[in-house]
């Protein structure tokens, strides 16, 4: 049995408390009026840039005539206000989704290992089950954030604003799908299905330990195969609902796969990191460096798979350059250069070069170091998917963003390691456990 170390528990509490404080500062310091928003931007940009911007606006207004100038400025200012008000919400949402997606990615990996009857991984099933325990609190928090969005507490999803839809024929055309009630029902179905599979599979997994036959194992195999079908459909729809609908004018066919690759590689990375941590504390004595090697191979392979999808989505849109599609990347190229290309270096080039060598994949600190870079890279990936639609060029990785990471990171660690204490870390009578114990690559 694993005992939650006090250091880690206190650390997770401190992270959560700091996160709450940072997020609160973020929420308190948002402007509530247009004037405050303008003042904030002017002071933030400093003298030179602010003045240049103002002059530009004046000359721009003069060209258009006075009536247009006033109307244009007013709408521009209101837009700015919404962006600034969105910032702490987006920071909250990005971090909430990121940690939820890790747990969901681990769940998909777990179901694949069960459905494929992998011989090497049963030793790690309890670690994976521990991580997927976060689906419950993470899913509930995400659902609450989505619910608050539909209640107009924020402006994350523009299509939820009836006034905007009234002036936008594109959104009217999509109103049949992008409807707040239907949106919440869908979210509830996705979350309900995922959490149900997680809880039921965990129950069967624990029952298998005490059973005299393999009926629980067989049942788990069937449920896992069924879950993968459900997951394939719901994950794709979830990515349209929760991420793509932030840019409701834009659409991309392989977006669901792209989000999947991101969550899958983050999930595998977290499995590897938690496994190495538990092993270093002496809890997983049967896990050898071949298991780590396999996980690192998955990290390496899925990182490249993620890059493949990232590039396929980007290159097809860049090549054809159709205006309605390309605006998505124009916004990211102009305002998000560093996070956009930085994430490519972190998610592709770094794991490619570090994890290519077979010997390095067995070295714990190499895997941990790559894991940290990959996780930050995929946080940035979610950041790049969400922020341009919600805060536009007003982004910054400051207190609310770090607060979001700290809070959900702390909650994640607390919940996952608490779940790990609930059951023995090694399954007792899984049919493949002997093979897994002697796994050697």
């Amino acid at each position, binding site marked *: 049995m694993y005992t939650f170390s006090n250091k880690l528990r206190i650390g997770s509490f401190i992270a959560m408390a700091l996160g709450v404080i940072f997020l609160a500062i973020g929420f308190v310091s948002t402007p509530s009026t247009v004037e405050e928003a303008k003042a904030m931007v002017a002071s933030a940009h400093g003298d030179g840039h602010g003045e240049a911007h103002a002059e530009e606006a004046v000359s721009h207004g003069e060209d258009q005539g006075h009536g247009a100038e006033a109307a244009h400025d007013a709408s521009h200012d209101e837009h700015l206000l919404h962006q600034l008000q969105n910032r702490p919400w987006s920071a909250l949402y990005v971090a909430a989704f990121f940690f939820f997606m890790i747990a969901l990615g681990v769940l998909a990996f777990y179901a694949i290992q069960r459905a494929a009857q992998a011989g090497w991984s049963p030793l790690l099933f309890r670690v994976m089950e521990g991580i997927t325990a976060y689906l419950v609190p993470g899913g509930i928090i995400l659902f609450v954030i989505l619910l608050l969005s539909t209640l107009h507490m924020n402006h994350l999803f523009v299509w939820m604003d009836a006034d905007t839809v009234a002036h936008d024929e594109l959104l009217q055309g999509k109103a049949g799908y992008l409807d707040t009630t239907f949106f919440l029902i869908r979210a509830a179905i996705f979350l309900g299905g995922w959490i149900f599979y997680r809880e039921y599979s965990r129950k069967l997994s624990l029952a298998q330990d005490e059973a005299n036959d393999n009926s629980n194992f067989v049942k788990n195999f069937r449920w896992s195969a069924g879950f993968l079908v459900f997951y394939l459909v719901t994950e794709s729809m979830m990515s349209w609902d929760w991420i793509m609908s932030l840019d409701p004018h834009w659409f991309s066919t392989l977006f669901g796969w792209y989000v999947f690759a991101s969550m899958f590689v983050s999930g595998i990375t977290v499995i590897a990191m938690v496994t190495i941590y538990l092993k270093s504390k002496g809890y997983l004595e049967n896990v050898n460096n071949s298991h780590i090697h396999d996980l690192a191979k998955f990290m390496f392979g899925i990182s490249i798979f993620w890059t493949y999808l990232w*590039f396929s989505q*980007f*290159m097809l849109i*860049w*090549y054809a*350059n159709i205006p309605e599609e390309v605006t998505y990347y124009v916004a990211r190229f102009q305002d998000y250069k560093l996070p956009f290309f930085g994430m490519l270096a972190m998610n592709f080039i770094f794991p490619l070069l570090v994890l*290519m060598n*077979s010997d390095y994949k067995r070295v714990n600190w190499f895997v941990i170091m790559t894991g940290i870079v990959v996780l930050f890279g995929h946080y940035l990936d979610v950041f790049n998917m969400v922020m341009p639609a919600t805060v536009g060029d007003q982004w910054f990785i400051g207190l609310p963003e770090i607060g979001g990471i700290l809070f959900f990171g702390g909650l994640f660690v607390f919940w996952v390691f608490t779940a790990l204490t609930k059951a023995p870390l090694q399954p007792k009578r899984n049919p493949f456990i002997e093979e897994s114990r002697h796994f050697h690559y």
Partner: protein
Amino acid sequence: MASKVIQALYNDDDVLMHAVKKVRAAHHHIEEVYTPFPVHGLDKAMGLEGTRIAITSFLYGCLGLAVAIVMMNYIMIEDWPQDIGGKPSFSYLDNMPAFVPIMFEMTVFFAAHLMVITFYLRSRMWPFKKAENPDKRTTDDHFLMEIGVHDNENELADLLWETGAVEVKVTEKES
């Protein structure tokens, strides 16, 4: 040097593995082992060094990437920077996404083919090469271990019979 060799035939890979370990423990130098299929762990038991072919492959891949970049930069950007369908031919970076499929394929092409050729050269394989096979049965269901003889023929033969050989013979080695 050792023109005389002793050859022991086995009909089971497990027996062979144990024999290899035993012969190595007795400090005899195994010149060669012939098997009909890859025997997992035989290289470790024989104490062979790991292959470095993956490293050569990585270097060949880098070469392929460089060739692709230099080629397309010269053709598309420097030599004749035409406007083809509005693609930006001002610098390599501007038009890079369009070159990535070729960069990728060239990397894989060089890495794969040059590595295979390296493998052929290093293991001396080519068409019309005379097969180096001391006993035809080793391509079907027998395993053969070959050890050089240095005036210790009887001692070696005893050791090999002890390891479970089904046949032991001493022959003159050609070449």
